[in-house]
């Protein structure tokens, strides 16, 4: 139980999100109507992605410091789960956009930036695949990972705030947070972020353990 408490917490928080997310009270806003509940699913995907990318960045830097392959494995797997969340964020965003803005995609800074970020991280995995030698692969992909993170910050956070954007929170639109995210939303949103992030960590943990097992079997 000591090892697994956070997995159970993740499950509880996610079940809470899914149940109260639909039953709970939300502010009535024009155009959005009930879809404001997507906050607990779409926005949380990006938050979870961010947290996991920070994990990846930290481990990339750690690898460059000590050249311990363990850090490299964590850097790769956290980036992998982060990319999964990013893709899910894009897809859920597209569905939300279709029914609120009227189109699956608009030529918008935030959207294009998010898509570009996913491409940047897809390139990270391609780069890793192109190299056989473990240490070389770890070193080069760690350096790339640091640049990739910087690009992500630029594409997702900096650029959209500098120009006009349709997306809430960017380009002069009030984000759900800027006029004090309604406390009813916060009550589900914060636990949801933690729940989804912990789920990502769980998936990452399983992948890493599987990888370590395979390595151990192969090296025998």
């Amino acid at each position, binding site marked *: 139980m000591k090892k697994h408490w956070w997995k159970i917490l993740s499950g509880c928080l*996610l079940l*809470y999100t899914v149940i109260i997310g639909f039953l709970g009270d939300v502010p*009535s806003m024009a155009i959005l109507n009930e879809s404001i509940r997507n906050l607990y699913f779409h926005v949380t995907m990006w938050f979870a992605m961010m947290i996991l990318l920070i994990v990846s960045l930290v481990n990339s830097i750690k690898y460059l410091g000590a050249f311990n392959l363990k850090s490299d494995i964590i850097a790769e797997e956290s980036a992998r789960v982060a990319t999964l969340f990013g893709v899910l964020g894009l897809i859920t965003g597209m569905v939300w956009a279709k029914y609120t803005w009227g189109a699956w995609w608009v030529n918008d800074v935030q959207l294009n930036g998010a898509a570009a970020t996913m491409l940047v991280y897809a390139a990270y995995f391609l780069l890793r695949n192109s190299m056989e030698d473990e240490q070389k692969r770890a070193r080069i992909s760690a350096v790339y990972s640091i640049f990739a993170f910087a690009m992500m910050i630029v594409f997702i956070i900096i650029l959209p705030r500098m120009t006009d954007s349709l997306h809430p929170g960017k380009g002069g639109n009030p984000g759900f947070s800027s006029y004090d995210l309604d406390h009813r939303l916060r009550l589900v949103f914060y636990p949801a972020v933690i729940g989804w992030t912990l789920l990502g960590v769980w998936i990452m943990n399983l992948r890493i353990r599987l990888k370590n097992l395979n390595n151990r079997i192969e090296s025998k």
Partner: protein
Amino acid sequence: MLTKLPLLLFVFMLSLVLTASAQNGIDMADTMRSSGKIYVVVAVAAIVMIGILVYLAVLDRKISALEKKIKDKS
């Protein structure tokens, strides 16, 4: 007792959030709520969530078994 804590937390938070929503002219899914269909939505979403969590738990257990096997062998 400690294992009951998540459930307790859940019930507590449930009681905080279930309040009546006000009508102010903006269409919300009140028909879904009044006809009880909202519970269908909740049930579906909960089933999907539980399915994913159970899958992860099973996978976790399989990997733990493998790790133990390899540790015992060496």
